[in-house]
């Protein structure tokens, strides 16, 4: 579809969202795949929380209300039930909770595409080898997670298939609906690393048949480092035994937070059993505000708007003769546009002098982007505009 048309059919109001982000006054920020810049409402929510903590000590019952409100908002965003949401500190913690929560037997297997997964969605699975679990690595296909190849490797002992919703590089989408449906039919637990997508792309765990999804708040959710969410579908969560357990994971009815229950304890319903110790209330205050902010726009409108911008950027780069990963914009394209040859360089550098110099030129002109695996990565969110896209394309055109 024509990029401009996608943008115009989306809510035109989103073109003004950049006004809510102070960073856009002096930066062309295209690096949300690394971490966000805050909208004003997040700073304000943090300030209110901090003033309360500094002048009045902090009202813990109110803090717990904040937690439940935030849990509810996230559940709404991904179309889950609040009981299916646990608070974590980051993506890794959520993935480890799932990986260690099952009753593994030697000979079970896990299928993933290590070439394209973030290391933090690899190590928790490798760690299962000590239990005799086989890790089935499936090669990537043209920079994409190969859904059909993964399914072809599945057998009766496959317990988990895991994939990123959008890879950190080259940033392509995975067909979650197809993978999820196939996993559901075969009784395989489908685990999604959604670090790169939630908050930007619409997420529907029901429609995509996702069983577990882990995300942190510092990227698309426009919040702080140090907090994340784990969605775990009720039917799976209630069969899981959390390896790490603390008071909030135990069902004590309505008793006090420091109260002690029976020695024979009952786990909290659903994913709440994974809640561990005190919450990061400040980060929850930030996430609650940003979730409310995103809710205001609506997940579908945000996706259409931001992906539309990515289409314009990718098309423009191709027109300038640059090697855009994935070629012409299509179903693979999310909110991340990458340029260069994947793997040409280290994690955050590139060996190609042309791209190194382009990167330098953009940074010097107040564009913010990343280099991942040797390629330039532009990642977009609601604070970006068609003007940003044009500005970047213009800078690329006139680059030395």
């Amino acid at each position, binding site marked *: 579809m024509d990029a401009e048309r996608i943008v115009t059919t989306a809510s035109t109001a989103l073109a003004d969202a950049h006004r809510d982000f102070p*960073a856009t006054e002096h930066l062309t*920020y295209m*690096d949300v795949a*690394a*971490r*966000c*810049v*805050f909208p004003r409402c997040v*700073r304000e929510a*943090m300030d209110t929380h*901090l003033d309360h*903590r*500094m*002048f*009045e*000590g902090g009202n813990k019952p109110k803090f717990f209300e904040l937690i439940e409100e935030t849990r509810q908002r996230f559940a709404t965003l991904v179309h889950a039930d609040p009981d299916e949401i646990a608070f974590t*500190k*980051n993506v*890794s*913690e959520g993935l*480890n*909770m799932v990986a*260690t929560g099952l009753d593994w037997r030697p000979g079970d297997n896990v299928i993933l595409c290590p070439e394209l997964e*973030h*290391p*933090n969605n690899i*190590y*928790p699975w*490798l*760690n299962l080898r000590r239990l005799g679990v086989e890790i089935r690595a499936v090669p990537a296909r043209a920079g994409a997670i190969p859904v059909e190849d993964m399914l072809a490797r599945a057998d009766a002992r496959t317990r988990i298939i895991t994939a990123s919703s959008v890879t950190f590089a080259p940033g392509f989408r995975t067909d979650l609906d197809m993978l999820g449906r196939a996993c559901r039919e075969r009784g395989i637990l489908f685990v999604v690393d959604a670090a790169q997508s939630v908050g930007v792309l619409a997420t529907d765990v029901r429609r995509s048949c996702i069983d577990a999804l882990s995300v*942190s708040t510092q990227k698309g959710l426009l919040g*702080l*480092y*140090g*907090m994340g969410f784990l969605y775990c579908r009720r039917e799976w969560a209630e069969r899981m*035994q*959390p*390896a*790490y*357990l*603390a*008071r909030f*994971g*135990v069902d004590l009815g309505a008793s006090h937070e420091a109260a*002690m229950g029976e*020695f024979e*304890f009952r786990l909290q319903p659903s994913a709440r059993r994974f809640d*561990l*110790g*005190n*919450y*990061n*209330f*400040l*980060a929850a205050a930030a996430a609650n505000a940003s979730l409310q902010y995103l809710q205001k726009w609506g997940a579908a409108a945000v996706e259409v708007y931001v992906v539309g911008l990515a289409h314009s950027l990718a098309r423009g780069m191709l027109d300038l003769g640059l090697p855009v990963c994935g070629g012409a914009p299509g179903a693979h394209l999310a909110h991340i546009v990458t340029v260069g040859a994947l793997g040409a360089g*280290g*994690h*955050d550098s590139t060996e190609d002098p042309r791209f190194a110099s382009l990167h330098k030129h953009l940074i010097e002109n107040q564009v*913010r982007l990343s280099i991942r*695996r040797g390629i330039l990565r532009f990642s977009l969110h609601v604070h970006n505009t068609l003007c940003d896209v044009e500005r970047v394309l213009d800078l690329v055109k006139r680059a030395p």
Partner: protein
Amino acid sequence: MDWQTVRSHFPVTQEYLFFDLANKCALPRFATQVIQEYAAKQERHSGDKHEWFRTIEEARGRFAQLVNAHPTEIAILKNTSEGLNIAANGIPFKAGDNVVVNLSEHPNNIYCWLNLQRRGVEVRWAPTRDGEVTVDALAATVDERTRALAIALVTYAPGNRNDVKALAAFCRERGIYTVVDAVQAVGTLNVDVVDLGVDMLATSGHKALFVPHGVGLFYCRRERLDDIAPFYVARSGMVTPVAVEHDTAHYELALAPTAARYEIGNNNYLGITVLNESLKYLLDLGMARIELRMVELSGYLTERLLAAGFEVLSPREVHRRSAIVCVRVAEPARVHTWLLARKVITTCRRDSLRLSLGIYNTETEIDAFTDLLKTYPG
């Protein structure tokens, strides 16, 4: 720096009698300032990860200094529970082994051990008296299958100190791991892991370290690091340079030889930035001096309560005392609410009213409090 100056750094003291540090801190101004600076950076340009990495190592070093450990023995986590669960899952228990806990522990130092029952680990309960587990009580509880002792350095109620040094010595002779919940001690008492001789210690930032919730600290004695395998793993717990923003097509578990092996994923950089400031503040004051002040204040509060005819449940001996004083009142919840309406912040714990002191409290506040409590109409 005198105590009056310290007090001026805590705005909560302007309006409240804040006796609730054992629950959570009221943030000092230096903490909120650091947070403002951090938030302003993330708002304007998303912040600088290299700066945060430097801050983490500085904070790790300062915490190590605070508890007399080596930086390689310190992991920075999200809370005390995470540390205790790392210990529970990392100790190489076999079915039929047992762990000793006691009924004075916080639930978060109980459930992580009860959770091992499904692996055939027995949970044994050491008897306590006034909150304390003595060496004799421990000796009567252990057997040759005892692998670990989990114990609080200071109980959350009634706030007594356990003689962890003696308990750890007993355990070491028998090859029993000593795991300490130090959350009610670190920042108010001078904790020295070498002197105590413990194997693992967990604590949080949100009490006497003056950090917003979301930072935990975990100590594992160097000689034990190899025995205690991390149960959760991520890139950050691998050997450098793999640990730092590195990726490859070929992955193998290559655990860091240091306590960083217990760290998973992105950290709470904001919380750690505050921690780094708080630790500097506490180290400048000196933990020995802080401990003296804390037991002086808790002694004074105890005296005043006793003189007013109240029953104090916390120990009176200076070596068993902490910064926590629990007092028996009828209907603690009502007293707590009544006090809160009069701008006194306390907590109810285990059918008592818990008063917990910090470096900003004064004798004058304690006088005002005891005079007020006497007028409670119940």
